[in-house]
């Protein structure tokens, strides 16, 4: 064990950095965000080679490494693949405030998409949630072009 040194306790120097960021959404995410905001529609992009549909849309198919240009709508309904009810707080890096808990993170495969998304499910009792459940997006009335605001959350639906 490293010997504890005799003498005064070493100091801690504390910084609270205010480091704002502005992320460029690019054309693909911008189109995705605009469709959510203006039309309450979720769009993905389709690979011309393998036909996979990616949501959120991105420029290159990771398998084929070709440019994707065909934007396609996908459903606002999907299947829950995995979830967790997060019950510990940490600093929300988008606001600098402590994260409000509990919240349920849901990993969802939207109908018509080959990739998955992560969003909030409005049920925090884990006993009432099961992988395989059907979910539907709930949009905010006042939409601003922010993904995690314009789709406020997902809810459980009875639907096969």
């Amino acid at each position: 064990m490293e010997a504890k040194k005799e003498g005064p306790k070493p100091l801690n120097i504390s910084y609270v950095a205010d480091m704002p960021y502005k992320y460029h959404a690019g054309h693909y995410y911008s189109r995705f965000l605009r469709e959510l905001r203006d039309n309450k529609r979720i769009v993905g992009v389709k690979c011309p080679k393998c036909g996979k549909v990616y949501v959120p849309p991105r420029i290159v198919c990771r398998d084929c490494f070709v440019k994707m240009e065909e934007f396609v709508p996908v459903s606002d309904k999907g299947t829950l693949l995995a979830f967790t009810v997060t019950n510990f707080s940490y600093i929300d890096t988008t606001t600098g405030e402590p994260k409000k808990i509990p919240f349920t993170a849901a990993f969802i495969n939207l109908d018509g998409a080959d990739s998955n998304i992560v969003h909030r499910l409005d049920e925090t009792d884990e006993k009432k949630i099961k992988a395989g459940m059907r979910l539907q997006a709930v949009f905010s009335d006042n939409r601003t072009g922010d993904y995690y605001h314009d789709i406020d959350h997902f809810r459980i639906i009875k639907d096969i």
Partner: protein
Amino acid sequence: MKRLVGIVGVGQTHHRSKNIECNGQELISIAVKRALESAELTMADIDAIVIGNMDHFESINYVDMWSVDGSGGYMKPIMKVTTGGTTGSAIGHAGFYHAASGLFDTVLVIGWEQNSESDTTAAISTCFDPITEREYSAGAIGPLAAQYTAYMSKYGATEEDAALVSVRDHNNAALYNPYAHLRQTITIEDVMKSAYISYPIKLLDMCPRSDGACAVIFASEKKAKKITDRPAWILGVGDCHILVHLADGIGLANLPSLEIAAREAYDMAGLKDPVNQIDVAELYIPASTAGVSWMEALGLCEEGGGPRLIRSGVTNMGSKLPVNPSGGVLATNCIGATGLLRIGEAALQVMGKAEKKQVEGAKVAVATGFGGCFWSDVTVLSSLPRLD
């Protein structure tokens, strides 16, 4: 043509929750000094240095330069490698590549982290896409917890299965590893009674975050044989970074990147029968749940066989295939060092230098690394220069 490279020295700090006795450079220097001593080398013998951590934990972006007072890299070639959770295993592989290239005979590899200097979960959350994924991805804990819900519903695994892994790793650290951060023996009941931090992961299912450093010295075949009569030969490495977006990985019950990386490393090593050929494994298991659900990817059981493997006790000390004699990540997690500690601990096993952690007669060891969007690294080490 593959060149033989051996590990000849391993050093680490006594890991803690918060090490106020050292700044980062001083912490690094302790691990470096111990690695050099264990190989009976001096800094003059080191040809190149590879160093790694995750920038956002300490918010120091020029670590390759800033760390020189601790790393000993003054006037030497230094490369910084940072790949998220796999940083430690990636720098180990980078050290191997350096020595295998024939350009450097002796390479010092250093992984470190002063995790107590910031909010670990907030920092990890910045790994995820700021616009489309960050909001509900609670660092490493949320995604790992979610993955086990998929595994449980697909294969019938339970929270008790995960608790068995937690007890195994915590107790190994308590009984055998004086360097470990958490050193308390626990019971299944302790784990099951601990609070949910992110369902189904409870407090005692999850790794801590630690302050600590690890240094490992890699040497070319000729040099390694001069330094020691029993190096830990690196027989195989595999790296697989399969998914770009976080959500794509979590929907899966299994871990394909680990399966692919293991296959690559086993093929390179000529390891055909993992269950019977591997004597000991040091696995990057950041949550006890992963200690159940990832075993099949390593070829240690059939698909969905994780619960049966863990319940059988075969991965406990004294059994056929001990996993994490050091206590692994559940006991110690200085993140940039974590993957390198797996390689270093596996090396000590096949060098016969693992002391109280030693698995008797260990000749073949496997180490893994994990991180990012469910990325994996695998290393096969042996006291033998080849397996056939």
